[in-house]
């Protein structure tokens, strides 16, 4: 990667946090030092000449979907690199899961190795990054042990399930029950691919089926089902499932439909960094024709509300 190094600054040194939010003054200073103000459009970018009508940095943003797949020799280097970009985009906190390299059907040892990488990144972030425990439900007993290690006895605050097995299967039930005991939300990759899903890849309907068996659990449908026009419909009646909009192209209309069909309280921002950009995924929300209070719920309010019980149990300040 070639980085524009001249005049690029360390935003962590210039950002000023106030009540957990990045202040406009800090952004304007940072933008000026970075030399971006001369080239940016009017609506969302900080301007030195006048107060912007709506700055990207006026929003509190928590990104609920990210990975360590960025340059760096260690998890610490990788999270440092990612947070540098998060700072530029006004993202206060990120949730990370899965280490590197990935496997569709990881062994219990591989799952532990990846969670250890995430734990290192979380520790390094000094409160900016939270971890969700990555599990392979095919190995149910080992998953329960890993859940205890990472969430009950460790700093992680949720569960991530990917593509090892479709989430409608019964072997997930003990894992979800344990997650409920720990107050941990469960984020499940969901996708409808007209080109064909992986054998263990869940659809949004699979997640709705699991959610119906566990009405007290909190679920996040990652990628809003991929093909979001189908995915949103599939979880519409599953009121304990929240649609998370990461991972797809910044197609116009996804957030508007999600808010219309689910309500703003059941929509969340995530990016799927570093494979996706913060930019394209934030745009889905900030460019959407939805009310301002809906944007604020989607960008941070809903995940903060969902994580409040486990944060309280762990003594983590919101």
């Amino acid at each position, binding site marked *: *990667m*070639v*980085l*524009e190094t*001249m*005049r*690029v600054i360390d935003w962590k040194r210039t950002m000023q946090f106030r009540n957990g939010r990045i202040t406009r003054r800090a952004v304007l200073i940072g933008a000026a030092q*970075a*030399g*971006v103000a*001369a*080239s*940016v*459009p*009017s*609506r*969302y*970018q900080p301007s030195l000449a006048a107060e912007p009508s709506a700055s*990207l940095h006026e929003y509190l943003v928590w990104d609920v979907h990210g990975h360590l797949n*960025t340059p760096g020799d260690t998890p610490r280097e990788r999270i440092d690199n*990612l947070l540098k*970009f998060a700072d*530029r*985009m006004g993202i206060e906190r990120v949730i990370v899961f899965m280490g590197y390299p990935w496997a569709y059907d990881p062994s219990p040892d591989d799952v532990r190795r990846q969670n250890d990488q995430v734990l290192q990144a979380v520790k390094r972030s000094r409160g900016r990054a939270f971890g969700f425990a990555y599990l392979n439900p095919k190995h149910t007993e080992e998953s329960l042990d890993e859940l205890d290690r990472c969430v009950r006895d460790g700093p992680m605050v949720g569960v991530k399930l990917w593509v090892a097995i479709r989430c409608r299967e019964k072997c997930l039930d003990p894992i979800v029950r344990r997650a409920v005991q720990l107050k941990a939300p469960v984020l499940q990759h969901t*996708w*409808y*691919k*007209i*080109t064909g899903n992986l054998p263990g890849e869940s659809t949004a309907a699979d997640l709705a089926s699991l959610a119906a068996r566990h009405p007290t659990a909190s679920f996040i449908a990652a990628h809003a089902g*991929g*093909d979001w*026009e189908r995915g949103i419909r599939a979880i519409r009646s599953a009121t304990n499932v929240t649609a998370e909009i990461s991972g*797809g*192209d*910044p*197609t*116009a*209309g996804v957030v*508007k439909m999600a808010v219309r069909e689910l309500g703003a309280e059941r929509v969340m921002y995530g990016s799927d*960094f*570093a*494979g*996706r*950009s*913060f*930019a*394209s995924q*934030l*745009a*889905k929300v*900030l*460019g*959407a*024709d939805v009310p301002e209070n809906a944007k604020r719920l989607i960008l941070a309010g809903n995940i903060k509300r969902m994580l409040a019980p486990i944060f309280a149990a762990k003594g983590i300040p919101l």
Partner: protein
Amino acid sequence: MIIDVNVSLSRWPFRRLPCDELPRLIEKLRDCGVTEAWAGSFDGVLHKDIGGVNARLIDDCRKSRPGLLRPFGSVNPTLPDWREDLRRCHEDYRMPGIRLHPAYHGYRLDDPVFAELLTQAQRRGLIVQLVVRIEDPRMQHPLMRVPDVDTKPLPGLLAARPELSLVLLGALQTVRGEAITQLIRAGEVYFEISMLEGVGGISSLLGRVPGDRILFGSHCPFFVLESATFKLQESRLLPARANAITHQNARRLLTGVAAT
């Protein structure tokens, strides 16, 4: 100042889009700081009456303030008498270029008719916009599955047409790595950023594509326009670099057309 080289008018056949009516689109362009947009038409993707598509495109572009919408007409070389559509774009409508949809029009880039179209466009001094992808193939309508354009024949075609200016639209999730390098070496090819992904995407792209070959493109209204503007911020470009990508490279392309 931003010149957005990838904007479309009219309606996408499979979904209403928030800015698929002209007043809303113009408002969005203005809100995001876009001072000029190179506009094709979604109608050009599937309609067979391409002459009508391009006539409406011209009418719509004239409804905006002068210079905001710059029309790029559709040409489908599988239709009878496509050369007349090309002539009208150039001579009657004074368009700076044309927009091609090989995947939707059903021809490959090694088809001799495509080579002829490029030759004629070069002779007329028209910019050629080639749409590699409109929509993620995983999410298309089940009865309308359209693969990305296979660009492998392009280096050879470009090398034989050194005066041709080719802008690839929606290419950067499809054309990657060495294929990009080959295209850059082969001729005057440009990439726009609408499909570019990954954290710090433009910074990464600059490791493979010279800064004077990258254009600002949003794929609006199919994509949210802010996606492209936010990418500028995420990569924290030097002002000179940002200015080149947001408008100077596109302006230079247009100047070349005018000179021709």
